[in-house]
């Protein structure tokens, strides 16, 4: 994977073969997002032919509402995975926040902004613990976040004590966040798209945003280049935690009725969505837009299974196969591209040899 991002950046070969290499790499990366989009279109078209009601206004709105929360989590997860780490605690954070924010809102009759801030603050605290453990104590991210998954889940259950929160207890402003919208567009997708665009723009266009990719491509090179690795990794976990907190409040607003194991097991769905969306689990590659498309695809598959009356038990199996397919195709493409790039640089080396005799002398020595 690292070869993908590093090879084209060879100075001096401007307009020559390396320019072609860059185009090839970009084409492959773009192709990933395009192929998911294509898959989505085929899936929706096929299902609509089988059952025309699938594409009704309500059906589409449901898919977007259901996808919003997953997309939000996928955006946060992308920031973490791009730095070659992983955050498995997000599902537990959503559950904890959804319940405790519900309790908070019901008890104090707080306004929606206060509840949102409350939820994001809890999420930030969880992200801070993960981030400090991973970045400053240098403990493997997988193990730490598995541990915090358990701890946060246990805390959530402990707070909930088997109770549940009903929509009737919640203030109207919180419920309206989940059910109303502007000009017929619900708030949830608006919030999600805004967050996605902001994070996407930051990662693409800010130099500190690019450093996330540098860390994931090669931590050692990033360190030598003076990238503040610890601070960036901590930031990634803070963003992931905060977005999980936000997702928890949105979950509360959307469903009204909440139990402590609200998003139980979602961490794997989120990771699957991110990986299916073209974010390499080995870091350094992928965009939030791809991850969002991956999340949308997984949500749509869930709805399609319901519409086609396929046993919903198949959803897990299909998600697993998609994930395996995504990483396998990535790997095969990467091998193919590496070979193509090597071919080109060989050809260009031959050209250079003909043009200037200097490298040939080097060759003669070996």
């Amino acid at each position: 994977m690292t070869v993908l991002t590093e090879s084209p950046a060879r100075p001096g070969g401007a307009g020559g073969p390396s320019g072609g290499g860059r185009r090839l790499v970009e084409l492959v990366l773009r192709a990933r997002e395009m192929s998911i989009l294509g898959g989505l279109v085929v899936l929706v078209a096929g299902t609509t032919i089988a059952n025309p009601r699938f594409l009704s206004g309500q059906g589409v709105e449901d898919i977007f509402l259901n996808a919003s929360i997953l997309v939000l989590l996928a955006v946060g997860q992308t920031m973490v995975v791009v730095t070659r780490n992983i955050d498995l605690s997000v599902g537990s954070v959503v559950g904890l926040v959804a319940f405790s924010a519900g309790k908070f809102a019901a008890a104090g009759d707080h306004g929606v902004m206060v509840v949102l801030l409350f939820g994001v603050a809890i999420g930030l605290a969880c992200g801070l613990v993960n981030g400090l453990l991973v970045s400053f104590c240098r403990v493997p991210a997988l193990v730490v976040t598995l541990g915090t998954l358990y701890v946060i889940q246990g805390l959530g259950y402990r707070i909930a004590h088997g109770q549940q929160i009903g929509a009737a207890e919640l203030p109207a402003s919180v419920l309206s966040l989940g059910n109303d919208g502007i000009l017929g567009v619900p708030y949830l997708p608006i919030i999600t798209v805004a967050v996605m665009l902001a994070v996407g723009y930051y990662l693409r266009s800010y130099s500190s945003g690019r450093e996330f990719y540098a860390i994931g491509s090669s931590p050692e090179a990033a360190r030598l280049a003076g990238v503040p690795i610890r601070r960036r990794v901590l930031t990634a976990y803070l963003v992931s935690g905060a977005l999980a907190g936000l997702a928890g409040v949105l979950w509360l607003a959307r469903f009204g009725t909440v139990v402590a194991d609200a998003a139980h097991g979602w961490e794997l769905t989120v990771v699957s969505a991110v990986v299916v969306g073209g974010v390499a689990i080995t870091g350094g590659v992928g965009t939030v837009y791809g991850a969002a498309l991956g999340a949308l695809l997984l949500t749509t598959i869930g709805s399609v299974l319901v519409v086609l009356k396929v046993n919903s038990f198949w959803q897990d199996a299909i998600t697993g196969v998609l994930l395996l397919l995504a990483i396998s195709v990535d790997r095969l493409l990467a091998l193919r591209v590496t070979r193509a790039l090597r071919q080109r640089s060989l050809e260009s080396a031959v050209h250079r040899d003909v043009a200037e005799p200097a490298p040939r002398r080097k060759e003669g020595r070996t």
Partner: protein
Amino acid sequence: MSRLGGLLRWETAVTALLIVVFAGGAGFSPDFASNDNLSFALDDLSEIALIALPMTLLVVCGQVDLSVASILGLCSALTGRMWDAGMAIETIIPVVLAVGVVCGLVNGLLVTRLGLPSLAVTIGTMTLYRGLAYVTLGTGAISDFPFSYTDLATSSIPGTPIPYPVALFAVLAIATGVVLHATGIGRSLFAIGAQEDAAYFAGIRVKRIKLILFVVSGLVAGFAGIVYTLRYGSARADNGLGLELTVIAAVLLGGVDFDGGKGTLGGVIAAVLLIGLLRNLLMLNDVSTEVQSIVTGLLLIISVLTPRLIAVARETRGRRAGARSAASAAVP
């Protein structure tokens, strides 16, 4: 040499903690040290202990298999489905074990042939196998297994408090210990975990060894699925949900480095027993499951955090000692 000393100290610490928990538990609750309770506590550990053996080999080798609990669930669901269809246990067991082998083979082939990271592969197959378990059995349960078989999973060897599955674990543990610590294969596992490229250039068949490890992991997880089913007398698709985390917690708590190349089986076995006793103590004292989940999580974090902190402390001490000796060398 100093590294060896450090490792020994870590395992001694785990063993000491084990003894403290045991003594504390015996003092705390009179039921704890009774033969019945100990045999129950050991039996309750069977699957975790069994799966921890191949997991130790995998982690030493720098790999991880997160799909083990899903394989256990799939095999449990299959056992139930086939029993429900009227098949004999004698035919079911080999079929289920074969399914476990195939599951492990899929993991292993994806890791070795395509060169994919085992973490990503087994997160995928974890979802896939659990999904297949649900497809096989839905959300129902099958629990009309005859006592002659369920007894085999719960009763002890006559005259001892050792349940049959634990006796089997002891045999397998000795075999695994010999392979890991007394054979060339074991040495090559450490070599692969320490520096895979170097191991490859040294002539170790890296891919074949990894493939075999994943297959063994699948086989053992499948077997654990049968034990789990018979022990609880109930086949369900969600059997063993989240068990992989406890297994990994045990392996890491036992002093195996998550990055590979370091660790001993003795440490892992001590850690498995420690986790089992802790769970049993919490249960005896009516501590709720959510606290148990918090304890598991904290154990997992502590088990990776402590060695890192020790390493950092040793590094700074070493640097200071180095500076001091350099200073004293400079004085005369």
